[in-house]
């Protein structure tokens, strides 16, 4: 275990009563100074992980390590982490200054130092001059910043953020994504960010943990997860995908929709049934003759940057295409794609096996754009 690891989960299970576990035997490591995102649909267990780290709830089984020490029994108020809550949880009876100063007041910090630190923290989140405002006088975005200032003033080693952007409107949310990322880099501390918004996760994180049904499905950098999803859930949850059933004939040769295609995947068993993923933006519209696939355009939506075209092949599989070129509904068109655009997923492959197989490909092929 390297010094870089700050938080480690070992076989952590969380179960309420006799229900299905919210978290089921989860193990992972969090390194210092990185921006992590726990991504998953609601009820997948991502917030539970956060609450376990913060100490608001106890693990049913397994160990949680912080800086190498088990912290299962350390109460929340003694942990070196601070949380930014979904509804911000600012104290309505205190003004901005006192909200930010809350942690310092409890530590009985000297008056002058409190004033200095609060000022610094507010400057950090661009809220200078708002010290005497009441919380109800602040807008959603400003409250968000107060909550962040309140969390960073204690100089924690880890900051936990529980869907903090979900209450903001789209424009503000995008702005705050940049700001949070920049803030994390300036502070140089670990951020663990919980969200169900895949775009948010892809835009901000160093590492993403995709979680579903109390299990970590896949972890990795945003590009890894986007380009090489491990299973149908991840492929479907992150970005849009065309997923069809296929068969791996041999290394670098896969069969689907009744045709054979060159691909970059290898190390599978001959004739192994697989699922094939092709991202909509990797499909290119061309003439029927030049296309690797022939499909009929069913509908088309203008999305601003691109057209989202839904089309069906003769077997009835839907093919979603993102294209800057317009198609005509009802036309028969061809779809062209590179062999790198094909991503093959095995059924029931664990993350470990998956990583091992990917490593065998060597660098440069398939991993990067």
């Amino acid at each position, binding site marked *: 275990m390297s010094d870089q690891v700050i938080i480690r989960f070992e076989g952590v299970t969380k179960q309420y009563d006799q229900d299905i576990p919210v978290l089921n035997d989860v193990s992972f490591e969090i390194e210092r100074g990185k921006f992590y995102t726990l991504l998953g649909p609601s009820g997948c267990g991502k917030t539970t992980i956060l609450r376990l780290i*913060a*100490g*608001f709830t106890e693990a049913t089984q397994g160990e949680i390590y912080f800086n190498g020490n088990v912290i299962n029994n350390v*109460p*929340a*108020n*003694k942990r070196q*982490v*601070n*949380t930014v*809550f*979904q*509804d911000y*949880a*600012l*104290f*309505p*009876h*205190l*003004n901005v200054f*006192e909200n930010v100063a*809350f*942690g310092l*007041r*409890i*530590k009985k910090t000297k008056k002058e130092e409190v004033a200095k630190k609060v000022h610094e923290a507010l400057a950090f989140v661009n809220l200078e001059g708002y010290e005497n405002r*009441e919380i109800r006088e602040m807008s959603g975005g400003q409250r968000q910043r107060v909550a962040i200032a*309140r969390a960073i003033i*204690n100089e924690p080693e880890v900051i936990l953020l529980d869907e903090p952007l979900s209450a903001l409107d789209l424009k503000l949310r995008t702005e705050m994504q940049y700001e949070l990322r920049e803030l994390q880099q300036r502070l140089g501390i670990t951020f663990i960010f919980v969200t169900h918004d895949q775009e948010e996760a892809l835009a901000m994180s160093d590492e993403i943990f995709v979680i579903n049904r109390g299990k970590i499905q896949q972890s990795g950098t945003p590009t890894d997860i986007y380009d090489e999803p491990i299973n149908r859930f991840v492929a479907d949850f992150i970005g849009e995908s065309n997923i069809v059933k296929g068969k791996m004939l041999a290394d670098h040769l896969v069969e689907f929709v009744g045709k054979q295609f060159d691909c970059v995947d290898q190390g599978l068993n001959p004739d192994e049934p697989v699922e094939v993923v092709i991202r909509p933006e990797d499909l290119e519209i061309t003439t029927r003759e030049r296309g690797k696939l022939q499909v009929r355009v069913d509908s088309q939506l203008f999305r601003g940057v691109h057209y989202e075209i839904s089309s069906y092949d003769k077997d009835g599989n839907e093919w979603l295409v993102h294209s800057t070129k317009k198609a005509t509904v009802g036309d028969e068109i061809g779809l062209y794609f590179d062999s790198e655009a094909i991503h093959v997923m095995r059924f029931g492959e664990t993350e470990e096996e998956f990583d091992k197989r990917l490593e065998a490909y060597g660098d440069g092929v398939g991993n990067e754009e």
Partner: protein
Amino acid sequence: MKSKLSRNLYAIPYALWILIFVVAPIVLVLYYSFFDIEGNLSLTNYINFFTPVYLKMTLSSFWYAFLITAFTLLISYPTAFLLTKTKNKQLWLLLIIVPSWINLLLKAYAFLGIFGTYGTANSLLEVLGIGSKQILFTDFSFIFVSVYIFIPFMILPIFNALDEMSPTLLDAANDLGASAWTTFRRVIFPLTLDGVRSGCQVVFIPALSLFMLTRLISGNRVITLGTAIEQQFLVTQDWGMGSTIAVFLIIIMFVFVALTGSRKRGM
């Protein structure tokens, strides 16, 4: 213009109500307070009020009302707090409120039975080997029964204030390093202060003018302003003096409400 007119029309019943049942009685009380027992216009009642007899009565009223409010608060706050933690909190709340639907007089008579010389309380003391005591007609019984009667009125506003509070605020305080006690002191209590204030108002003000309990439970050993007013009107037939005491009672109530009124949040 039409909507303004109709709005004014709708206000008439309320204005009449307030005029007849709020303003008029106060004006009448004020009017009668300036007549002495012979029916002459004078300020003697006001001069009399500042004699030791009435001042002492006022002070003792205050003292008992204060004790009743304090004990009621002491019991109600933890109860309300525990209530919010229970699973069927609305049911428990209902059970606590139900006794307040029963007539005050009936409850007072029930306590006469319980606290009497051969009552339940004394039988219990006998069994415990302490021996029977004079419970009825003491300060203790007066305060005990008053507190019992006022508890639901104190619990309700405090319970509501606690219930409205977002539980993540407690997580937040805990997260920022606060222990359970600090969280209570710095977050929970300040946020429920409005509930405590209105609870104290609904207890303290009626407690100032309690009169039936003073006779039934404390056997007129405790004489509050309420008792004094009742006696002046019904026994002495000195409506002027009774009104004067009532005027002071009203003034005290206004002062108390003004003092305990909810202030702007955040100093």
